């Protein structure tokens, strides 16, 4: 697995968890709250949660070291393309994408991250993983 680029001293290392519900300690959860698994009042962390559509991230370009998504639900191919495209936009050069679908693990996402131009795409521990060029 490629090493993530290290953040400059003083910079915050931004990890975005698409559809996240605070299960990843230091990530910022991006969740539309359309159908959260758990009651939002039990997991929303002030300062670490953004209510947003994962295919239209309200995040400026090139700031995230990692964009991950675990337990991503079924969605259309068009939404997958949009989500991967947005992930690429917000990732910094050398940043990593790591996606897992509830219905098919990482394999369901692999071709989408390859088509979006991510490098070194592979399946690692159930996730489709790639690096932003």
């Amino acid at each position: 697995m490629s090493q993530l680029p290290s953040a400059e001293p003083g910079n915050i290392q931004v990890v975005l968890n698409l559809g996240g519900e605070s299960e990843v300690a230091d990530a910022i959860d991006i969740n539309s709250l359309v159908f959260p698994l758990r009651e939002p009042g039990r997991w929303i962390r002030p300062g670490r949660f953004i209510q947003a559509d994962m295919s239209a991230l309200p995040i400026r370009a090139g700031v995230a070291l990692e964009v991950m998504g675990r337990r991503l639900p079924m969605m259309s191919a068009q939404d997958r393309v949009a989500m991967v495209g947005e992930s690429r936009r917000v990732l910094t050069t050398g940043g990593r994408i790591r996606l897992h679908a509830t219905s098919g693990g990482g394999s369901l996402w692999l071709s989408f991250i390859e088509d979006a131009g991510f490098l070194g795409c592979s399946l690692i521990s159930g996730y489709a993983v790639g690096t932003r060029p």
Partner: protein
Amino acid sequence: MKALSASQVSRWLEENPAPIHRDQLKPWSKRVTRELGRATLPKLVRLLSDGDPELQYQAMAAARALGAEVWAETVDPELCWSVRLPGEISPRLIPSRKQVTF
């Protein structure tokens, strides 16, 4: 409305997955009410227990659209569901038999 069989409910959920965009929530919920109906709630509860993880998620969404309160109480690999159907006073816990593994 004629009650759908368990396999028909599963197929409907696979062919009409819950939306990920907020603006599609209301029309999808209306379809759930019209095409599945509250008579399917026991089958949706069964799917929470026995369905594969994606089907569990879809059953959770459909049950909510039909007025049930359904929340995951814990996280995988030990996920269980808290379910309170319309008219029930207290929620019950339903363990998921098929967990997401990483």
